[in-house]
C-alpha cells in the first residue's frame, strides 16, 4: 500500500466486492457457519458470514461463542483450509473407454469457474505457498492444482483474533498478511463503526478495488489497523521454538517421547485432514461391471493409515509411534530437505481437531527439554 | 616343509602372520588333495583337522532323510573349511564334499590347539582370524533364514 493511498470500505462495500467477484465469473467461497463450526463454503454476501461469532479453541476442543460486537471475521480458523478447494478431497484424473482391444483415455475436465477466496488468513496464505512448492514447483506440476491456483482470486484478512491453538508468530507466518493476496482487508470495529481497510496486492486486485465504493482512510484508521495485528500477535495461544528444529528432531528419532505420544494417538488422521499443507493422496481405480468404462480418482490420504506405507510383505510403518513420528518430523524437519521450507504454518488446526488433544508444540517442547544434546 | 610354509604364507587366512608363528604353524600342516565327489569329512566324525583351500570348491551339506544332501554353503579357494575343531567336543556338524579337484592345506587340530595353549599370543592371533569367519557365517545364516527374496510358490 502506498503512503496516502489507504482506502476503506464498509459492510455494503464488502457486499459490493462479493458481487463484483461474482459478476466476473468467480465462485465466491468464504467463512460461514455449518454444524456449529465456521467452515469455508459458497457464500452469497456478508449475510452468510459468521457475524458476531468467534471460536474458542484448545487441544481437542472447539466451540463457537457469541462476541459482543458484529465482527465478520472475528474468529481464528476452523476445520477447513483452502486446500479443500485447490487440492480437493477427491479429484477425478481420467476416464477410459474400451472398444474391443482399443482403449481411449480422456483427462478429467477442468473446473467450470475460477475460485475467489474470502477471508484468507496469513497462515493459510503461507500454506498455499507451501503447497505451491510441492504441487507446482517440482519437476512434475499437478495440472489440476496449478489451474485452480492460477485462476483463483485471494482476498486476505488480517487476523483480529488469535485462536487458543494459534502459533503463527513462532512459525513467522502471521498474523499480518504481507503478500500472496489480490486484496487484503483489515477489519476495524470502533463502537458502531465497522470498516475494512482495503489494499491491493496485484493488478487483478487493483482492478476489482477500482470498482468498489471506497473512501480514503485516515491516520486513525491506519493506526487502528496496525493495532489489530499487534494485538493478535501478542495473544497467541501457543508458542514453539524452531531454532535447529531440523537437527533436534532428526537426532532424536528414537526419543522415548514418541512412545509417549503414540500411547495417546488414535492414528485417526484428523491432523492430516485439517492441516493446510498436508498434500498426500492415493488413487482409486474403478470400473463398470463389464470393464468397458474405467476411471481413476485421486483422494486425500493420510500417513497415519497402515496402507499408506504398504509394500509387498506389509507396511513399512506398522506402529502408531512411527506414523506420528513420520508426520511430525516431515512437517517440521524433512520438509526443509524436500521442499526448502517448513511444512508447518502454526495454524493450530492439528491441535484443535485432534480428538485426544495431542499438541505438536508440546511434543516438540518435551523432546527439546529432554534431548540428549 | 618349505613348500608348506610358503603355501601358508600365501593363503589369505594367514595373511600377515608373524614369520616365527608361520614356522610353528607349519609344523601342524599337511598337503592334501580330494577328487571331485570325495568327502573331506562327515557329520559326527572327530574334527581333528581343518582345511585351507588352495584350489577348487567344497560343498557343506547336511543329509536330510527323504530330501538327500542339502548344500547350505559352498567354500572356494582362499577360504577355510571347518570350525568345529575349535570347540569341544571337536565333532563335525555337517558333511564337506569336494565339488572339483580340491587342493588344500590340512591343519592338525590337536597339534595346533596344543601350540595355541602353549603360547596364548598365538592362540589369540588364531582366534582373531577365526572369529570373523564365524561372524560372517552367522550373519549369512541370518540372511538365509529371513528368506529375503520372497516365496516362489
Amino acid at each position, binding site marked *: 500500500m502506498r503512503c496516502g493511498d489507504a482506502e476503506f470500505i464498509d459492510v455494503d462495500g464488502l457486499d459490493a466486492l462479493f458481487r463484483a467477484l461474482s459478476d466476473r465469473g468467480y465462485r465466491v467461497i468464504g467463512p460461514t457457519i455449518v454444524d456449529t463450526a465456521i467452515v469455508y463454503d459458497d457464500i452469497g454476501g456478508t449475510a452468510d458470514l459468521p457475524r458476531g461469532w468467534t471460536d474458542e479453541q484448545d487441544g481437542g476442543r472447539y466451540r463457537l461463542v457469541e462476541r459482543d460486537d458484529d465482527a465478520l471475521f472475528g474468529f481464528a480458523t476452523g476445520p477447513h483450509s483452502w486446500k479443500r478447494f485447490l487440492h480437493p478431497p477427491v479429484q477425478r484424473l481420467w476416464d477410459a473407454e474400451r472398444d474391443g482391444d482399443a*482403449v481411449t*483415455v480422456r483427462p478429467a475436465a477442468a473446473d467450470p469457474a475460477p475460485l475467489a477466496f474470502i477471508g484468507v488468513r496469513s497462515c493459510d496464505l503461507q500454506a498455499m505457498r507451501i503447497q505451491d512448492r510441492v504441487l507446482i514447483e517440482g*519437476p512434475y506440476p499437478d495440472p489440476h492444482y496449478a489451474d485452480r491456483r492460477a485462476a483463483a482470486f485471494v482476498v486476505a484478512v488480517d487476523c483480529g483474533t488469535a485462536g487458543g491453538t494459534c502459533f503463527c508468530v513462532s512459525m513467522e507466518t502471521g498474523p499480518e498478511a504481507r503478500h500472496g493476496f489480490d486484496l487484503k482487508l483489515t477489519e476495524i470495529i470502533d463502537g458502531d463503526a465497522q470498516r475494512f481497510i482495503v489494499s491491493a496486492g496485484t493488478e487483478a486486485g487493483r482492478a476489482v478495488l477500482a470498482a468498489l465504493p471506497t473512501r480514503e482512510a485516515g491516520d486513525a484508521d491506519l493506526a487502528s489497523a496496525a493495532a489489530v495485528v499487534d494485538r493478535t500477535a501478542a495473544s497467541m495461544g501457543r508458542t514453539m521454538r524452531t531454532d535447529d528444529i531440523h537437527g533436534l528432531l532428526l537426532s532424536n528419532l528414537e526419543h522415548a517421547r514418541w512412545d509417549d505420544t503414540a500411547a495417546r494417538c488414535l492414528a485417526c488422521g484428523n491432523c492430516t485432514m485439517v492441516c493446510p499443507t498436508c498434500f498426500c493422496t492415493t488413487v482409486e481405480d474403478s470400473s463398470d461391471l463389464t470393464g468397458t468404462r474405467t476411471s481413476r480418482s485421486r483422494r486425500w490420504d493420510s500417513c497415519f493409515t497402515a496402507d499408506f506405507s504398504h509394500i509387498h510383505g506389509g507396511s513399512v510403518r506398522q506402529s502408531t509411534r512411527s506414523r506420528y513420528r513420520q508426520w511430525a518430523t516431515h512437517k517440521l524437519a524433512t520438509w526443509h530437505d524436500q521442499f526448502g521450507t517448513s511444512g508447518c504454518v502454526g495454524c493450530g488446526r492439528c491441535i484443535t481437531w485432534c480428538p485426544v488433544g495431542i499438541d505438536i508444540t508440546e511434543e516438540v517442547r518435551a523432546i527439546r527439554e529432554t534431548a540428549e544434546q | 616343509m618349505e613348500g608348506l610354509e610358503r603355501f601358508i604364507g600365501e593363503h589369505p587366512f594367514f595373511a600377515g602372520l608373524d614369520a616365527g608363528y608361520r614356522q610353528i604353524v607349519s609344523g601342524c600342516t599337511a598337503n592334501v588333495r580330494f577328487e571331485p565327489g570325495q568327502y573331506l569329512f562327515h557329520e559326527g566324525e572327530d574334527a581333528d583337522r581343518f582345511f585351507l583351500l588352495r584350489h577348487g*570348491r567344497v560343498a557343506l551339506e547336511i543329509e536330510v532323510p527323504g530330501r538327500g544332501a542339502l548344500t547350505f*554353503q559352498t567354500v572356494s579357494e582362499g577360504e577355510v573349511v571347518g570350525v568345529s575343531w575349535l570347540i569341544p567336543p571337536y565333532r563335525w556338524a555337517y558333511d564337506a564334499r569336494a565339488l572339483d579337484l580340491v587342493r588344500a592345506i590340512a591343519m592338525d587340530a590337536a597339534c595346533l590347539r596344543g601350540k595355541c595353549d602353549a603360547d596364548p599370543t598365538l592362540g589369540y592371533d588364531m582366534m582373531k582370524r577365526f572369529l570373523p569367519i564365524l561372524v560372517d557365517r552367522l550373519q549369512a545364516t541370518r540372511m538365509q533364514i529371513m528368506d*529375503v527374496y520372497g516365496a516362489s510358490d
Partner: protein
Amino acid sequence: MVPIVARVRRRRRDGPGVWTLDLRSDEGAVRPAAPGQFNMLTVFGVGEVPISVSGDPGDGDRLLHTVRAVGPVSAALADLRPGSAVGVRGPFGIGWPVGAMAGRDILLVAGGLGLAPLRPALYRLLADRDRFGTLTLIYGARSPDDILFRREFQSWRRKPGLDVQVTVDHATDAWDAHVGVVTTLIPRATFDPSRATALVCGPEVMMRFAVNGLRNAGVDEAAIFLSMERNMKCAVGLCGHCQFGTVMICRDGPVFSYDRIGAMLGRKEL
C-alpha cells in the same frame, strides 16, 4: 497423470510367477527409459503399479518390464495376454549413473527380482565394454528354480569381459555352482576397490548386507548405488507415499548413492 495406451506384444515367463511383458505403444513411442528408471503401468479397471524397465535402452523397438505377481495389480499385469491394453506413464526417477562410470571397475550385485532393474545397465555396459574396467555380475537367488533370465545367463557366461557369479541360498542336487548368500561372492570378484563402482539391487535387507560386504572390500560409500523401493502412487513427487526420511524415492531416486541414504537405511519404520 494420464497414461498412454500401450499393448502387450509378447509375454515370456522369466521365473516362477515372473513374466516379462514386451509393450508397444498405440500413440507413438513411449519415451525411452534410462537404465534404472521405471514406468507406472496400469491395468485398466484394476490399478497402477511402478515397474522398472528391464530391457535394453538401446533397443528402441522393445519396451520390456519384468513383473512378479505379488499383489492384485501385478498379478493382473503378469496375466495379460498379447494384444491386451496397458496404460503407461513414465519413465520416471533417477537411474544408475552409467554415464559417469567410464574407466571404473564395475560390480553389479543383484538379488532375486532385483536383477530386472540392473539388466538395462548391464546391456549398456556390455555395449560400450571398452570404456570400463573389470565387469562382474554377482547374482543371488533363493533357489536354482528362482533364477531370473535363466536362458540369458548362458549367453552372459560366454561374454568376454564379463565375470558372472551366481549363488543360491537353498540348493538342489542338480546345482553345482555357489551356495550361500550373495555377499560371499563379493570378496571373490576381481576389482580394484579404489576405482570400483557397485550397483546394488534387491530386497532391502540383501542390499544392506551387500553394502557391508562392499565397504569391507574397500569400496567407497559414494561409489555404492542402491535402488530403493517404497509405496508409490503418483511417481512424480506429488502423492507423498514414497517418503524416506529426507528424500522421496520417486523424485530423488529410486537409485541413490549409499553416502546419501546410508544413515537412514535399517532405521526401524522410517
